[in-house]
């Protein structure tokens, strides 16, 4: 895993939400704009994930995740968007050459980090369910269509 850079060289993302290309705007927005200017609140060095938030307000944060892309970010964005506790969420890839993605989460009161964690947990549960359902469907298909038939189909091609 690549080492994260030290704080000063990082682009400062908080407080006002930058224009994320694929973001929705729910009716309610939090007071992120009134926060003290950009603090890197709870970020720790040497990790693959950094949280850029404010010290005083834990309800709005940007999570910077290295070595991830649209694959994870867009799925998480979808799950976050379906969470009633989320006031705003969106993600962006700051530069196509950078191997990282920023996920912005603003909530209606809960800590952004917890909400993000819950969403990831939900996504995982959903994936497990997809895998289970898929396996059952395949087994069922195999039962209804004995393999001999499939091989014949293959040969015909």
């Amino acid at each position, binding site marked *: 895993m690549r080492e994260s850079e030290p704080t000063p060289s990082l682009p400062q993302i908080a407080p006002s939400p930058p224009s994320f290309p694929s973001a929705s705007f729910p009716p309610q927005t939090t007071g992120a704009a009134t926060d003290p200017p950009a603090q890197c609140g709870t970020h720790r060095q040497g990790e693959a994930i950094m949280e850029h938030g404010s010290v005083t307000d834990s309800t709005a944060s940007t999570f910077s995740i290295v070595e991830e892309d649209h694959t994870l970010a867009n*799925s998480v964005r*979808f*799950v976050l968007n*379906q*969470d009633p506790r989320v006031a705003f969420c969106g993600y962006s890839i700051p530069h196509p050459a950078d191997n990282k993605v920023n996920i912005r989460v603003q909530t209606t009161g809960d800590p952004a980090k917890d909400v993000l964690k819950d969403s990831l947990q939900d996504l995982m*549960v*959903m994936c497990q369910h997809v895998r289970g359902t*898929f396996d059952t469907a395949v087994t069922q298909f195999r039962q209804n269509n004995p393999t001999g038939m499939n091989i014949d189909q*293959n040969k015909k091609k």
Partner: protein
Amino acid sequence: MPKKGTKSRKGTDDEPKQEEKNKLPEHLEVQRTRVVCKGDAPTEGFQYAGAFAAMGIDNSVSADKFCKNFKVVVNRLTEDDMEFDMIGIDASMANAFRRILIAEVPTMAIEKVLMADNTSVIADEVLSHRLGLIPLDADPRLFEYISENDVPTERNTIVYKLHVSCKKGSPRLTVKSGDLEWLPEGSQLPLASPAQSGDKQKTYTSFSQSQKDILEKPLGVKFKDITIARLGPGQAIELEVHAVKGIGKVHAKWSPVATAWYRMLPEVVLREEIKDADAEMLVAKCPVNVFDIEDLGNGEKRAVVARPRACTLCRQCVMGPTGEVMGPTVEQVELRRVRDHFIFTIESTGALPPEMLFTEAVRILEEKCERVISELS
């Protein structure tokens, strides 16, 4: 095939649409669950939890709700190709699976070519590139990744050799992928440095045991009839290749799929009855025969939607006679796609069967979540 298509179409038509009690008005429900395609490009609506909060309708999708509604129907499953319907899933997740299938499910592919002799007309680097793209019949789950400083062992490297020559005076020889010979004992090329006397000659790999002992079946190439090169009389190729584990993100040769794609289920709705000559015209217009004619008796005919799954949304049916996008039938025929119904197709290159590939892809997305969760806490 068409039989299966009809079967699953019926299934989707009958099924009740998600929301049970509080129903949205019809036009909003269509907006929520369908992508409507008029003459213009479809506009993408964004769905979030509170979208219909003002009407007292909860639009959130909890994991429970998702699990209750999610369905998979397999339409076709062969050795290296499958099609299935995923119902009740968002495009973002379907797309994640697709992206992972193409770029992040690992396979084995030839990464190093040790060229001992190449007198053919095909240049070393071109030959190497061709070799790299040959699909290997090796289960990647049995191997480990090799990093730059690792020693190639039986756990992370597969060695093949290619030793072909065309005798003087004989006709031209075509070298096929089947000529690659698996070396379960590892490399046979001695290292340049002189080995200590008595010791086993050092080679480019250090296998501690034969791969025959750790693998259930012998390794080979998936297709034996891929042309690698052609040799003229007197030309020869002698080389050894090392295949390692990798992912499609690094190089497409590691991609386990020829391609993987999905499309949303098309839905064709006739808003008014289309009869007689108009019906004939509509049927004739459609290049994929979505519509059929139903005989109403007493000499009347009516157009019906018979095969909506075949629809490609070409919009011929709503186009006017001179090709204008909003033709006279635009009010009669509505083309839609079901927002949460995906027809997913996977074409495997052969390392793993397609159903295994999908399972692996889902598992990789899970691992991604897991990693981020553990990093967050």
